[in-house]
């Protein structure tokens, strides 16, 4: 039986700015089961970062939670005490950041940092160091005992990201948030990171929320996918459904745009013309309307709800086209 670990329920988050409220997230709903890998895919400005910082409650001072809940193991993280939140971070929920070059403290050895991260454990220093070395070898760092004595600058970017993964997984968290962990790396290193992440995830049975704008990586790693555009979920469902049978024009166009998709040399590559709308001054109706080539009068009139398309696969999309299809 699948057990829900994280549930984002109708979450709306604004940033207060001089120009008025910037509606960064609007009615976001999705869930993550225990031991599952869910990918969040979307381009700049879609709200990926706001979503992560809302889950961890590490938000900027001008952030306003307007509506909804973030439930982790049934508890709403948005109204627990700061102390309780702090005891969750790094033990039950941990994170791997985008930039491996800035994740580690440059003036402490890797060993020191891996000891520090175990501050909650009652094990002896020797045991903690042993555990650190074990984790390093689990992410494929050769000669871990000697490496523990080295500083971050003595490691390559790919190694540093693998160390960041090792550190995030030390406490055997139930949820790992991976925020574009491969964006700063070459394709060959990206493959290594994905392999390590997958094998550790299977060993520890931890759930992963994998954020990326790279469709290829999402397709390869994830069980389910949530597609975001300009602060809203436009489509979500099983990875095969999303890539094989996309039901939102944005998802379709995004997949078309990926040059990995086009095998023959193309003179003209597909694009999505236009810009993401201003979130401080939301247009009426569907958020994707202005860039959509299938927009209808109805799209201007009201915002399409995220509607279930296939019950079995949990495929949902927010587009009026699907309503028309179902009606006819």
């Amino acid at each position: 039986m699948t057990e829900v670990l994280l549930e984002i329920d109708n979450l709306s988050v604004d940033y207060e700015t001089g120009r008025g409220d910037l509606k960064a997230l609007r009615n976001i709903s999705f869930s993550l089961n225990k031991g599952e890998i869910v990918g969040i895919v979307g381009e700049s400005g879609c709200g990926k970062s706001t979503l992560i910082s809302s889950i961890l409650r590490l938000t900027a001072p001008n952030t306003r939670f307007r509506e909804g809940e973030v439930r982790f193991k049934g508890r709403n993280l948005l109204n627990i005490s700061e102390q309780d939140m702090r005891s969750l971070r790094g033990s039950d929920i941990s994170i791997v950041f985008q930039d491996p070059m800035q994740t580690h403290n440059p003036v402490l050895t890797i060993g020191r940092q891996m000891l520090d991260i175990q501050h909650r454990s009652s094990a002896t220093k020797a045991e903690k160091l042993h555990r650190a070395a074990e984790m390093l070898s689990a992410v494929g760092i050769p000669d871990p005992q000697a490496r523990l004595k080295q500083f971050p600058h003595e490691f390559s970017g790919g190694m540093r990201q693998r160390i960041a993964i090792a550190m995030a997984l030390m406490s055997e968290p139930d949820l790992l948030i991976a925020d574009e962990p491969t964006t700063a790396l070459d394709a060959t290193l990206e493959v290594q990171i994905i392999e390590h992440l997958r094998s550790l995830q299977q060993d520890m049975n931890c759930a992963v929320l994998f954020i990326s704008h790279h469709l290829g990586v999402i397709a390869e790693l994830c069980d389910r996918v949530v597609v975001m555009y300009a602060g809203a979920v436009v489509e979500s469902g099983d990875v095969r459904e999303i890539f094989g049978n996309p039901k939102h024009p944005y998802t379709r166009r995004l997949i078309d745009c990926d040059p990995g998709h086009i095998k023959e040399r193309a003179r003209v590559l597909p694009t999505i013309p236009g810009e993401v709308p201003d979130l401080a001054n939301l247009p009426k109706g569907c958020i994707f309307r202005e860039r959509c080539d299938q927009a209808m009068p109805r799209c201007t009139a009201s915002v399409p709800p995220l509607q279930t398309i296939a019950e079995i696969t949990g495929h949902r999309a927010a587009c009026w086209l699907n309503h028309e299809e179902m009606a006819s």
Partner: protein
Amino acid sequence: MSLLQVQDLKTSYGKVNVLAGVSFQVEPGETYALVGESGSGKTTVIRAIAGLAPAQHGSVKFNGMEIRGASERKLRPLRKDIAMMFQDPVGSLSPRLTVGRLITEPYKIQGMKDRDLNLEAKRLLEMVNLPSHFADRFPYQLSGGQARRVGVARALALEPKLILADEPTAGLDVSVQGELLNLLNDLRERLGLAMVIITHNLNVVRHVADRMGIMYLGRLVEEGTTEEIFRASRHPYTRCLLSANSEPDPDARLERIALKGEPPSLLTRPHGCEFRERCPFAHSGCERVPVWEVENGHGLRCLAPLTS
């Protein structure tokens, strides 16, 4: 005669041999892609061509004229013909100048006083599909994609014959990436531009480059037409790079060739074939130093070449 001819180019910073002899040429109107991992020397090659990085040895000929180590005075008139697009789109624009000033600065530097700069700015913005009121904007008011297009406009200002583009699509969203590549393809056709493009995104290379060179530790290890490299690459490193290319399809059968270990340090270059320690196909013969061999326009530096 080739437009650009790079011959045995070597660069070292102290004891670090960043480039250990790079040779290739680019014909007029041709797009040549340099690919390889971080630290393989791609950026140093194009910076050395533009005279922005030192090159202690070898030759760089542009239109037959030697420009390696040329004085700034001698280089300045040539900078009309060779334009550079830098990797960081926003960082390469001065934050205190408007877009209009930024894209017309090349005219001032070249002393072209007869030009109407407002008119030129308008023309250039139009060329890269930006509205003309963008001339009054500052770099911080631009999105990543817009800043890229400003970079393209500035590179095109003096109608160069050769563009050196360092990761022109890095950091761009896929929906915008195509737009920039289409723009470059279009300009190349209309203006007959030649380009050297650096990228580690092989999916991009396939759509823009005529020929490509694969670099490893400051050397070319394979070179050929893009079509040939994708179809019948022979160097194990090229195969690894190609196999790391992901596809937006959950059922894609990816036959991955895993690279062993990390790129070696440039300070302690391995003996023999420098890729040997990471190569899944290396044999005892690879302890010898492989030489560059060219067959039907397909260059290769390997002692354990693969067949399709």
